[in-house]
C-alpha cells in the first residue's frame, strides 16, 4: 500500500473536536498548526468552549475571520460543564464521517494528524489512538513522581484489564463517527478515567483499534484543570471497568 497518501480519501471529512477552558493563546496556536499540517484534507475544527473567563471565545472569533467560520466552528456552552459532555456536545455538531478528539493545550501536536489519517486509511481501523509508550513516542516535562504513577497505572491496567492497547489514558484519538457515537453513549466515567473507559469498551466491543506513536510535551501555557486525588479516582475507575466490561 505504498501509494496511500495522508490526504483524506474520496469524500472523507474529519471533524476535530477541541474542548477548551481558558486556552486563549493555545487555541490560536493549535488552529494555526492544524491548518499547517492538514493541507489537502477536508476538515473542520469544532471548539467547545465552556464560557472561559479569559476570553478564549474572542480569539476563536478572530480565528474565524482568518480561516473562515465554515472551517472553525465555535460551539460554546454557558459555563464549565466538564470534558465528557463537551465531547458529546461537539459530536452533535460534527459533519465529518471521522472525528478526532484532541486537547487544546499543545500537548497533542497537530503534526501527528496526518499519521492518524494515514493509519486509518491503511488499516481501515475504526479507532486510531495515539500512544506515548512505543518506539517513536515519548513524554517531555514530567517529574519522577508523574512518571512513576503513569507506569504504575499502566502496569495495573495491563495486568487486570488486558485492554489490547498500550496507552489507556491518552486522549489524542481518531474515531469513525458512528463508533464514537456508540461509545460515548455507553461511557459514564468522568475525567481521564473516561478516556480509559472509552478505549476499554471499544476493545471489548471488538472495534478495530490501531495505534500511532505520539510525543507528549506537557502544557507550556495556561494551567491544568484536572487534579485532586487522581490516584483514588484511577483505582475506582479500574475497579468499575473490571466489573462492568
Amino acid at each position: 500500500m505504498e501509494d496511500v497518501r495522508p490526504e483524506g480519501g474520496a469524500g472523507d471529512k474529519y471533524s476535530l473536536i477541541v474542548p477548551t477552558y481558558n486556552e486563549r493563546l493555545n487555541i490560536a496556536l493549535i488552529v494555526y498548526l492544524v491548518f499547517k499540517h492538514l493541507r489537502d484534507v477536508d476538515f473542520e475544527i469544532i471548539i467547545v468552549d465552556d464560557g472561559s473567563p479569559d476570553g478564549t471565545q474572542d480569539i476563536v472569533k478572530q480565528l474565524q475571520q482568518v480561516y473562515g467560520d465554515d472551517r472553525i466552528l465555535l460551539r460554546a456552552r454557558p459555563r464549565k460543564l466538564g470534558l465528557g459532555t463537551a465531547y458529546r456536545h461537539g459530536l452533535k455538531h460534527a459533519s465529518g464521517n471521522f472525528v478526532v478528539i484532541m486537547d487544546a493545550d499543545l500537548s497533542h501536536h497537530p503534526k501527528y494528524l496526518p499519521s492518524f489519517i494515514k493509519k486509518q486509511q491503511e488499516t481501515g481501523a475504526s479507532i486510531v489512538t495515539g500512544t506515548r509508550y512505543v518506539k517513536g513516542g515519548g513524554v517531555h516535562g514530567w517529574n519522577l513522581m508523574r512518571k512513576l504513577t503513569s507506569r504504575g497505572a499502566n502496569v495495573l491496567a495491563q495486568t487486570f484489564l488486558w485492554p489490547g492497547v498500550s496507552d489507556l489514558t491518552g486522549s489524542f484519538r481518531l474515531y469513525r463517527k458512528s463508533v464514537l457515537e456508540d461509545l460515548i453513549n455507553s461511557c459514564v466515567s468522568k475525567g481521564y478515567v473516561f478516556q480509559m473507559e472509552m478505549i476499554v469498551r471499544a476493545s471489548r466491543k471488538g472495534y478495530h483499534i490501531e495505534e500511532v506513536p505520539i510525543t507528549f510535551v506537557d502544557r507550556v501555557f495556561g494551567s491544568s484543570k484536572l487534579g485532586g486525588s487522581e490516584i483514588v479516582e484511577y483505582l475506582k475507575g479500574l475497579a468499575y471497568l473490571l466489573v462492568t466490561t
Partner: protein
Amino acid sequence: MKHIVKIITLLVAISAVWIGLLEMSVVPRSQTWLLPIYFIVSLGCYGLLMVGIGLMHFPTCPQEAVLLQQDIVEAKDFLKQRGVDVNSE
C-alpha cells in the same frame, strides 16, 4: 462475560489444579498454603519489575519541546500579522 468473571475463572482454574495436585499427593499436604503465597509474591514482583523497567526505559523527547517552541514562534508571527491577538499571558 464481564472481565472480573474471566479473572475469577482463571483463579478458580488454578486453584482446581492445585487442589488436584494436593489430592493426588504430588505435593505434600503440609505445603497447602505455598501456592497462594507464591502466587501473590510473584504477582507483586512482576508488577514492581514492570514498573521498574518502564521507569528505566521511560520514553522522553526533550527535542520535541524545542521543536514546539519553534512552532509557537512561527504561529505567533503568522497570527499577529492576521490580526489575531496572541500577546496575552
